[in-house]
């Protein structure tokens, strides 16, 4: 018997936690109210779909672009003179590129500081087919460690789509005198809405469960219905798509009734929908080129299934399938500012904290030494720099590390704040964390 652990845990109920970032309630209520109003007028709610890369709240500096004719400039000169990103002063030229199917990915500039590597990467359509534009995105960007990046900024003058990535090594490891490799897979462009009708599909077969290549999705490229199952009034639908096809889909199935009424799908609410043993596990087919997604449609009348038509709404993108691998070697870099201090904040003291300041970030790490502090103490720690040019605010990183095993007195904590633009270390006079001021000059 095969079990999917993620499915088995679907009935897990996380405890309520009052800490953490707040919710913009006004905006939430407005979004929900709009959707509810659209429901009541019969209009189908259109989802705002954005193609974005991995994003962290405190990452990249704003990229300002001008209309200069930058096509003649080399990558680094273009970056420095046209784009002028916030970290331009602390990166070195790399100008290493790889071209697949006429799309060039170039690592223009990069630098490493401790466990962080910052890289500027651009895409350009060298075949002149216009596939790289403001609406283009990369399906997957990976590196061996963590990765954060912006959604890309397009410069019409040069035809480049520019990304700023910051790759992070695992705790305790460093990029110093090492390298980083970025893996980019599949370029997507030309986003469109879709609405396919699977009129020839026998939905009544769902009652006994069916899987396999049940029916091709008419009008699609490589998509087919891979499974149907019915449990009470819940119809489960599996849709497969060929990931080697030059089209990428994001489906939103719905049922169309004979009178034009629709029943929208919902993401599986597994707490009320039992695991369906008739469907194959969600995921990748053998060979890794077929992706299978599962959807649930609620409130169907089992006796009326043969009167419904399964439809697939959603979005599609044209896809340039391929892998772009960018390898960047680093040499030596300026030394960071380092200090050891007892950091206090609101009565909590972090003894012998090791402080590290680079042009990209500020680190604070240490041992809990048997002292158990609340996660909120770490997450609420403010930090800024006093510099010759004034106060420089720092943004807390999304994942502070705190001791989780309260039986282990040697738990480590590891906190990071990110800079919005390059920090000139020579101009820093003091680091302020919580109530503690650490002079550096």
């Amino acid at each position: 018997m095969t079990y999917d652990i993620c499915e088995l845990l679907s009935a897990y109920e996380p405890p309520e936690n009052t800490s953490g970032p707040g919710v913009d309630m006004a905006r939430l209520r407005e979004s929900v109210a709009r959707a509810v109003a659209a429901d009541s007028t019969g209009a189908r709610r259109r989802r705002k779909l954005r193609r974005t890369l991995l994003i962290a709240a405190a990452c990249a500096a704003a990229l300002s672009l001008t209309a200069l004719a930058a096509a003649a400039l080399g990558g680094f000169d273009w970056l420095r003179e046209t784009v002028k990103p916030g970290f331009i002063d602390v990166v070195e030229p790399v100008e290493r590129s790889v071209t697949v199917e006429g799309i060039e990915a170039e690592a223009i500039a990069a630098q490493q500081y401790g466990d962080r590597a910052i890289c500027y990467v651009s895409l350009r359509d060298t075949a002149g087919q216009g596939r790289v534009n403001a609406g283009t995105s990369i399906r997957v960007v990976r590196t061996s460690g963590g990765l954060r990046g912006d959604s890309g900024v397009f410069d019409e003058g040069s035809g480049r789509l520019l990304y700023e990535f910051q790759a992070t090594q695992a705790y305790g490891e460093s990029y110093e005198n090492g390298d980083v490799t970025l893996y980019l897979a599949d370029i997507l462009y030309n986003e469109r809405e879709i609405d396919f009708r699977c009129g020839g599909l026998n939905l009544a077969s769902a009652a006994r469960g069916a899987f396999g290549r049940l029916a091709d999705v008419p009008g699609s490229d490589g998509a087919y219905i891979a499974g149907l199952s019915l449990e009470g009034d819940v119809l489960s639908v599996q849709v497969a798509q060929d990931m080697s096809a030059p089209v990428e889909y994001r489906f939103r199935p719905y049922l169309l009734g004979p009178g034009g009424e629709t029943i929208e799908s919902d993401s599986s609410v597994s707490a009320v929908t039992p695991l369906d043993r008739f469907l194959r596990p969600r995921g990748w087919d053998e060979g890794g080129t077929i992706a299978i997604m599962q959807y649930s449609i609620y409130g169907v009348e089992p006796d009326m299934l043969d009167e419904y038509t399964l439809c697939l709404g959603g979005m599609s993108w044209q896809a340039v399938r391929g892998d772009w691998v960018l390898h960047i070697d680093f040499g030596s870099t300026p030394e960071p500012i380092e200090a050891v201090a007892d950091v206090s904040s609101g009565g909590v003291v972090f003894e012998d904290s090791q402080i590290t300041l680079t042009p990209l970030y500020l680190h604070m790490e240490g041992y809990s030494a048997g002292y158990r502090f609340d996660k909120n103490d770490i997450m609420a720690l403010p930090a800024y720099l006093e510099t010759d040019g004034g106060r420089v605010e720092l943004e807390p990183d999304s994942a502070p590390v705190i001791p989780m095993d309260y039986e282990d007195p040697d738990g480590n904590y590891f906190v990071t704040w990110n800079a919005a633009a390059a920090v000139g270390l020579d101009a820093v006079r003091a680091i302020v964390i919580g109530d503690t001021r650490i002079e550096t000059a």
Partner: protein
Amino acid sequence: MDEIEALRELQRGSEEALSWFIGRYAAYAAAIIRNILLPSLSESDVEEALADVFVSLWRSAARVPAENVRAYISAIARNRALGALRAHRAELPLEEALIEVPCPTPEQALTEREASERALAAVEAMPEPDRDIFLRRYYYYQSVADIALALGMNVNTVKTRLRRGRERLRDELMKEDE
């Protein structure tokens, strides 16, 4: 308005009741979604998924179990977040999340509910930080690298503890009924 009354009104189509549930559970649902989507996706994606949770609650009000609304909302939140994450095609699906459990006869196979209950019991019995790591990976779909970074461990340590957790879970699923 208490929760039972709010649910009753919601099922009657009361937008005021929907607003009550937003006020009651927005932070809770947001925390679940953030644990899944960040840092891979953006706060904007979190907001979109969060709004979807309450729209879904509105549309499926008739199916909400009165005895545990919070569980229903946590399930919607997780699945909405998972939908957004899958569209991003991160490292999903989790291939190592599929485990094989020998089953002498089909009649002796656990029902879905039994398997789920045993899995939850196995997770509750795990010591920390194994339990935290296991939930981060298999409930919140966090990457091994992000888990390692968050907990100050190296990647291999996280992988070892996950494997230990899967073995514990398999043992629990293989136990015969007493």
